């Protein structure tokens, strides 16, 4: 019988520590599948952030080094500059990439660093217990917006992917989600394409991944999947935000 589904080679035989219904394990698995498919294990280095996914190195059987909060793009810059033939990716949450690490992210993108960012957007700070993220929606209740996010005092959800798309050094940005089989398949394609942009030495690539955080959203896993479709994608539409990978010498 033909085997059509198995554990990716670089996904360790470990039990995920994540909460029930969390999106991280799906994204970890997709990254593992793509690393297998593209045969990258021998020269890929991953940079996980402080946050729930700091333990990504317990699940991915690749070289990994923890970054300080928000500094992933700077760490990846140093690593890639010292080891240009390596494939370097960061794995960052919304608070990490779009709040404390905004400067690092924008300037790495602006230098056209040949690195790839996987940007996990779940509209909340997960590990610290559900505080407002830069991507939290208007009226979204979090532990630090107990009356809902008020645009007058907390501002609007930050669309960092759209901001980054205006930068010439950026070659590829796509926003995907992992809340349905079809979206998961699209997410995998985007991850592969982002790595390919780096392999082709084109510039900075980023995949924004909308992921459920049922525990901090106060929802069941099913409700959280539905919330992404019904509410979150209205603010953060799923689409290719920028793609210059077809152009030769993109940057």
């Amino acid at each position: 019988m033909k085997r059509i589904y198995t554990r990716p080679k670089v996904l360790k035989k470990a039990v995920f520590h994540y909460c029930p219904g969390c999106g991280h394990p799906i994204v970890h698995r997709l990254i593992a599948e793509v690393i297998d498919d593209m045969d990258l294990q021998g020269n890929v280095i991953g940079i996980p952030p402080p946050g729930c996914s700091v333990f990504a190195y317990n699940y991915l059987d690749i070289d990994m080094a923890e970054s300080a909060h928000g500094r992933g793009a700077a760490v990846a810059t140093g690593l890639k500059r010292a080891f240009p033939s390596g494939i370097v990716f960061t794995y960052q949450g919304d608070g990490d990439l779009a709040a404390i690490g905004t400067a690092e992210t924008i300037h790495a993108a602006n230098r056209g660093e040949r690195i790839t960012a996987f940007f996990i957007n779940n509209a909340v700070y997960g590990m610290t217990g559900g505080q407002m993220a830069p991507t939290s929606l208007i009226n979204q209740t979090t532990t630090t917006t107990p009356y809902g996010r008020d645009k007058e005092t907390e501002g609007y959800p930050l669309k960092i992917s759209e901001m980054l798309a205006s930068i010439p050094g950026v070659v590829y940005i796509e926003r995907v989600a992992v809340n349905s089989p079809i979206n998961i398949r699209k997410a995998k394609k985007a991850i592969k394409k982002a790595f390919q942009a780096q392999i082709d030495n084109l510039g900075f690539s980023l995949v924004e991944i909308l992921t459920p955080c049922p525990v901090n959203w106060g929802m069941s896993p099913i409700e959280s999947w539905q919330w992404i479709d019904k509410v979150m994608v209205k603010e953060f539409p799923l689409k290719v935000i920028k793609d210059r990978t077809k152009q030769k010498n993109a940057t």
Partner: protein
Amino acid sequence: MTKVLMDGNRAIGEAAIRAGCQCYFGYPITPQNELTEYMATHLSRKRGCSFVQAESEISAINMVYGASLAGVRVMTSSSSPGISLKQEGISYLAACELPAVIVNMSRGGPGLGSISASQSDYFQATRGGGHGDYRTIVLAPSSVQELADLTHRAFDLSDKYMIPVIILGDGMLGQMMEPIEFRHEAPTELTIRSNALRGASGRPSRIIKTFTSNPRELEEINWSLYRRYSLIKQQETDYDTFMVDNAELIVVAFGMAARIAKGAVKNSRANGLQVGLLRPITLWPFPSEIIQELSQETKQFLVFEMNMGQMLEDVQLSLGDKAEISFYGRPGGVISTPSEITQVISRLYYQKGLKRI
């Protein structure tokens, strides 16, 4: 070897390249810009090397962390306010046991302070500086020649002990020009550390991390650092002495303050006062043992610093009640002259009724 006339900042850059530094990441701040510019001119075009003007000091030190992960010799430099921003990254480097060389051409503080030379970052440099229980090796040169020599030594020590090394200079040392010679040629082949993070090819995957949810595991990590720090104390403590034989009074000073004090000691000797100088070269580890040895003969010590009294505390810890300690300091970027220190020495010498020749 021929001598060249060079300012301190550029001398560090040239010495670093000759030590095999492959990556430099920095952010402009006075009074150390000549070093960043030297690297932009001379390192960026070297094969296999990289220079990045970072968007902040925080980014620069995290780029240093990234390059150190990849196993290359890497350096950053800044001055006091910028060094404060780098402390987060230095703490991670220390925790991950990653080598790196960090130059602080310090200036007056606190706050934005002044751009004049000062020694007010002694506490920050010698007590770790960032969060957590760690130390860095701290080297304090007092001439451009020594700056070049210690830059090379900083890279070697950093690799040997897998520890960040701080070169603590000041704005005057960085800006002044002196004839120097470089004792090393640049390596023809750049080397990669054996434990580098370059992909799990033909070996198991590697993880570099600092976080653990198990305090006992972290306790052992801390103790293992402690054991290494103890070894560094035994093996790498360094100092210089000048005219300490039969000294009634010994001046303790580091860096440029020691340079100024040396002139004062010479003047005082010419005036018949039996004065010597002890100059710590490693501020951490601090040369406590030599101070204790000297206190068997000499009972009066004068600590002179360009701050309000920071190394003073290490001298007090070293001596306890074995000798009497006085202090003279000029904070805020004010630079004393040898004649000023000569007067301070004379006043103290007569006040204490010390023996004259």
